[in-house]
């Protein structure tokens, strides 16, 4: 089977809807960078769209339209300083106090989170993403506590990359370009306070991708190297 066949199978199954959450996330991410895949997906959308004609329309609740208009109004009027910044400031203050007793880690903000993670009881709503190239090769395991907006990434089988760093990105079209969540894979557990700057909804819907960057991370703030692993969050506990 050639790569083109493979790509077309993938595009076809993506449109048909039979891929699992991680495979879907992978395809959704790759199509942004791979015009061949994007074109294959569009072609399959057009081929299968007539099937939608078999679905009878169902009128939604009349309340929904107002809710949508309200959501749009809120999104449009959202200022640069949303209320969650204040929330974030509270969080930072809390991390600081938590870290006072851990002098060895106090210099490093990432350490603040580690302390917080170990002190924290079991997360009430917990998500996991397997960041992988394909179903056979998971590379990183990402666990996310949506309520606390914190995450931990541990390498499972990421190939070491001498002189390079793996950088984790949160990708959500609502937010424009990919947002860096820092370097992963250089230690047994990685985390980063930046996740707390996103809303729970944006965290939940995002795709998480790992790119290969120069040592220390992307110099531009956007991915500069190839995206080697990606995945989407799956809820593990209700």
């Amino acid at each position, binding site marked *: 089977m050639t790569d083109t066949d493979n790509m077309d199978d993938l595009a*076809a199954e993506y449109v*048909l809807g039979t891929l699992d959450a991680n495979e879907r996330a992978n395809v959704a991410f790759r199509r942004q960078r791979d015009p061949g895949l994007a074109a294959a997906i569009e072609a399959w959308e057009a081929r299968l769209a007539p099937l939608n004609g078999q679905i009878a329309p169902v009128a939604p609740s009349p309340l929904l339209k107002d809710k949508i208009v309200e959501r749009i109004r809120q999104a449009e009027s959202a200022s640069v300083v949303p209320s969650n910044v204040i929330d974030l400031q509270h969080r930072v203050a809390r991390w600081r106090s938590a870290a006072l007793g851990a002098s060895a880690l106090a210099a490093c903000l990432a350490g603040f989170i580690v302390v917080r993670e170990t002190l924290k009881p079991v997360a009430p709503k917990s998500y996991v993403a397997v960041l992988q190239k394909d179903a056979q090769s998971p590379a990183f395991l990402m666990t996310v506590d949506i309520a606390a907006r914190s995450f931990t990434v541990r390498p499972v089988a990421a190939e070491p990359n001498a002189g390079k760093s793996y950088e984790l990105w949160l990708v959500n079209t609502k937010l424009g370009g990919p947002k860096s969540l820092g370097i992963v894979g250089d230690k047994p557990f990685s985390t980063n306070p930046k996740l707390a700057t996103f809303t729970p909804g944006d965290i939940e819907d995002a795709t998480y991708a790992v790119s290969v960057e120069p040592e220390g991370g992307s110099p531009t703030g956007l991915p500069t190297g190839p995206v080697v692993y990606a995945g989407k969050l799956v809820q593990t506990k209700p």
Partner: protein
Amino acid sequence: MISTVPNLVALLAGTASKDAAAFGHLYDATSAKLYGIVLRILRRRDLADEVLQEVYVKVWERAADFDPARSSPITWMATIARNRALDEIRKRVPVSIEDAPEALNVASSDPPPLQALELSQDVKRLNACLDRLEPQRKQLVIEAYLQGASREELSQRFGHPVATIKTWLHRSLAQLKACLSP
């Protein structure tokens, strides 16, 4: 309805320029269709309500991306709705059909009579090509698309291992592609 089909292309163009009235008409003209699509996949009204809201917010935000040369307005919007519904259902622990059998009653596998009259060339062509598949594989493709069934669910329903389902899907889709190519 047939004589007053709103011009969805114009309404999408209006939406792209942030015309709230155009967006309102677009919603009125398309929401029942999109709701039918997401409800069929999600099988729960609460989930479908949430997804439909997100879909229309996305339509509002991304209307400028719509290109009439590349797809029809309803296909473009249905694709957004399907993708959002599929992402949502795949995030969740699979729900058994037995949990919500009434949800399946909202859509029969036969097109409603009014729509049957409007069947376009595309629909006829796809149906003809689906009919050339073995009956079970035709059913496999249709259930996957309309109900958002995963390979695992299809494996249980059709009583074959996941690997077999995957092979059947790939072969059936390749056959469809060949049949549909000009």
